[in-house]
């Protein structure tokens, strides 16, 4: 990567501007560049160079002043929200946003935990890497039960694009032939432990509708030539991914799409460029570019292009659109429907159970597997719904032998206690619900009427709560996880339901603020992620989702993005854009 990749001022009219550099922006830039388009990627944060800037990688806990914990004062000052993310530590905190500089508000009596990653690569550096296709049941769910609007696309529209991105990104997993969770183009799956194989057998015997499979994850278990050419090698099973991975073993913008885009010579990147709003031409009814405020010195500048792709995250993209107020669009660009900012969703990770698997004392594992197991959703169509709520949930989990961390609280003093702490203890295994959240108009983000951030952009004001459906689902999921583990023979099974304690947001799967749809009256985007109201404006991140399904959404971000780019390039060539 050369330094002239990065630009600051430019009068050039690019073919396309891609706002954002995370999973979605990285893919959009790569595809446009490879199709010969002069592409400007705009990133609000700093540059993070692959390998060089992974400053927490490869360090032992003793090399951190507080043994990887973050100092109270620093948390209070900068990371009051970010600290709630499981991956937040002294070894990763530099990849999380600074809550002090990035304020947002929530309506009184509500809360939303918004995890940020404002740097080149965005959340692709921090993601959990679980990668699943949506099925036709997911794309049909809204139509089938009447919640939300109908997705304008179906599985067949995305199928080949899923294959395309999977082959390049590298997804490990096992072929299962499940109708609710289509198989991907797989690298070999990670192995299960002996207790997991045992529990799998027990659960599948006693619950014929349920399957226990290895999690599907964007890790190179066996890289292909295509991956080696990207400079990526086999996953070493450190499971310290969020520190950054110099092996390039998990998919990120830095490891995969960015070098591919840069190699074409068609890519420019404008870092430290906070997009304030879009520049709209009332005459042509098209966007001409973006207005940017410098992240550091707050000076302003503009960039121009024939097409703009918003890949700035579900809340970020909608914020830019809402802040683009024009004569034709006084309530935000491409918002003639009035749904922009509405139907905000996350996933609901708030119930589950954990127990002890007796025996297997002569069994252990080697390495830190960067994936758990999954019980795919078994309530994936109306005929399978429970009586008192709609939709379903998957169950993720895994097994491990207890170690000093779990055993420290047991009774014991002295040499025997110390010797016991050195040794692996009992096997424990958990199942944790990943529930669908319904799309509801009442869950929304808007621009704050008076408060602005340091770049002069109105704060996002969020009103998002769990509905009765989500609460009933978690109550059921808690009981179900308990029953499954108990019937599989686990002992000391304990269940939990934390929906009363946790705000939406912490699954870090924000979705739905600029949804797709067939009808311009009730949706922002068409089936190709193109704004109904503005032909040369696209939104391909999670904002475009009509429903959340239960699957981790990132693989679908990738697939809809490359599909949208393909459509856009063809439209540009046909002079329709």
């Amino acid at each position, binding site marked *: 990567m050369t330094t002239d990749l990065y630009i600051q001022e430019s009068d050039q009219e690019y073919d396309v501007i891609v706002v954002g550099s995370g999973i979605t922006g990285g893919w959009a830039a790569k595809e446009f560049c490879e199709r010969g388009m002069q592409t400007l990627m705009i990133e609000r944060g700093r540059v993070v160079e692959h390998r060089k800037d992974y400053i927490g990688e490869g360090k032992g806990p003793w090399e951190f002043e507080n043994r990887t914990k973050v100092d109270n004062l620093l948390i209070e000052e900068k990371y009051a929200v970010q600290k709630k993310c499981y991956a937040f530590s002294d070894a990763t905190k530099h990849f999380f946003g600074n809550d002090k500089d990035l304020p947002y508000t929530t309506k009184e009596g509500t809360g939303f935990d918004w995890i940020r990653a404002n740097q080149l690569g965005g959340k692709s550096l921090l993601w959990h890497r679980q990668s699943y296709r949506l099925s036709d049941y997911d794309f049909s769910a809204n139509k089938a039960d009447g919640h939300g609007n109908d997705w304008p696309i179906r599985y067949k529209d995305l199928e080949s694009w899923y294959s395309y991105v999977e082959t390049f990104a590298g997804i490990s997993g096992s072929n299962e032939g499940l109708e609710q969770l289509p198989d991907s183009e797989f690298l070999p799956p990670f192995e299960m432990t002996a207790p997991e194989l045992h529990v799998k057998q027990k659960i599948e015997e006693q619950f014929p509708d349920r399957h226990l499979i290895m999690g599907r994850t964007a890790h190179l278990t066996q890289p292909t030539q295509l991956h080696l050419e990207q400079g990526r090698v086999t996953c070493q099973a*450190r499971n310290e991914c969020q520190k950054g991975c110099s092996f390039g073993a998990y998919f990120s913008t830095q490891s995969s799409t960015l070098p591919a885009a840069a190699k074409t010579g068609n890519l420019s990147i404008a870092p430290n460029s906070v997009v304030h709003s879009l520049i709209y031409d009332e005459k042509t009814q098209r966007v001409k570019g973006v207005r940017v405020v410098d992240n550091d010195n707050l000076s302003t500048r503009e960039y121009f292009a024939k097409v703009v792709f918003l890949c700035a995250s579900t809340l970020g993209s909608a914020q830019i659109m809402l802040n683009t107020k024009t004569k034709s669009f006084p309530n935000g660009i491409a918002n003639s429907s009035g749904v922009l900012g509405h139907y905000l969703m996350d996933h609901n990770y708030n119930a589950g159970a954990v127990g002890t698997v007796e025996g297997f004392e002569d*069994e252990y594992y080697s390495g830190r597997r960067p994936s758990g197991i999954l019980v795919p959703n078994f309530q994936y169509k109306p005929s399978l719904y429970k009586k008192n709520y709609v939709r379903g949930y998957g169950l993720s989990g895994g097994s491990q032998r207890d170690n000093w961390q779990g055993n420290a609280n047991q009774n014991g003093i002295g040499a025997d206690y110390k010797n016991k702490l050195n040794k692996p203890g009992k096997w424990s295994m958990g199942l944790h619900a990943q529930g669908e959240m319904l799309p509801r108009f009442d869950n929304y983000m808007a621009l704050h009427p008076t408060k602005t951030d340091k770049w002069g952009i109105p704060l996002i004001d969020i009103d998002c709560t769990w509905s009765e459906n989500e609460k009933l689902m978690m109550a059921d999921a808690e009981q179900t996880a308990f029953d499954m583990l108990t019937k599989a023979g686990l002992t000391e099974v304990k269940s939990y339901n934390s929906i009363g304690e946790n705000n939406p947001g912490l699954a870090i799967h924000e979705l739905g603020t600029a949804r797709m749809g067939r009808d311009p009256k009730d949706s922002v985007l068409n089936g190709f992620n193109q704004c109904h109201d503005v032909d040369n404006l696209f939104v391909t991140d999670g904002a475009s989702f009509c429903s959340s399904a239960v699957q981790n959404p990132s693989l679908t971000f990738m697939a809809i993005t490359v599909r949208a780019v393909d459509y856009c390039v063809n439209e540009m060539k046909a002079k329709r854009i």
Partner: protein
Amino acid sequence: MPTNSNKTELEKRTYDEDNRRMFMKKMVALFGATTAAAVLSGCSVPVAEQFAAQRSNPPKDGNLFSEQELTVLYSLCETILPKTDTPSAVEVGCHEFVPHQLLHCHSKQQQDDCIHIINTVDLLATREFAKSFVLLQPQQQQQLLVDFETNSMSTDSEKDQFRFLKALIVFGYFTSEVGVTKALNYQPIPGGFIGAIPANAETKSWSPQAYY
């Protein structure tokens, strides 16, 4: 921050007679001349000397604990995780780690709980044996803590407070360089994941952890 194992080595080297005299002074102030002399002439001399060496540096974390509380904490570390085929909690610096970590990463409540439980244990020692916890024989120290943790000598909330402090000492131990690389089976780059390998009673747990 230098690693704790390095610090121990360094401080062992810099130990001298001045430190010994300073420690004697502190012990006299805390426990009176007779018991101080008894400690320094008895089997706990090497322990006492090492402690003096480490205390000769001014505490860098303010004054969360008094001198006496620090002395008790030192003995708690030594008693809970003593030297075996791997170094003791004191040898990897847990008695310094605990005040540091409490101050920087824990709540006021947790700090107060730890101060309270340290004093409670010491008070109990004084009640049972008419001596500070620090001055008990190692066997007495161990028995006292076993009793404290398991029987009616302590309340439920005191048991919780004690377990919290104990877990913090254990955390300090197994996140130290010695704890990670020597006490456990160190595997910084596993090279891949294998779902099933044989284990027996001698098998050690892997380290490091992905998340702490």
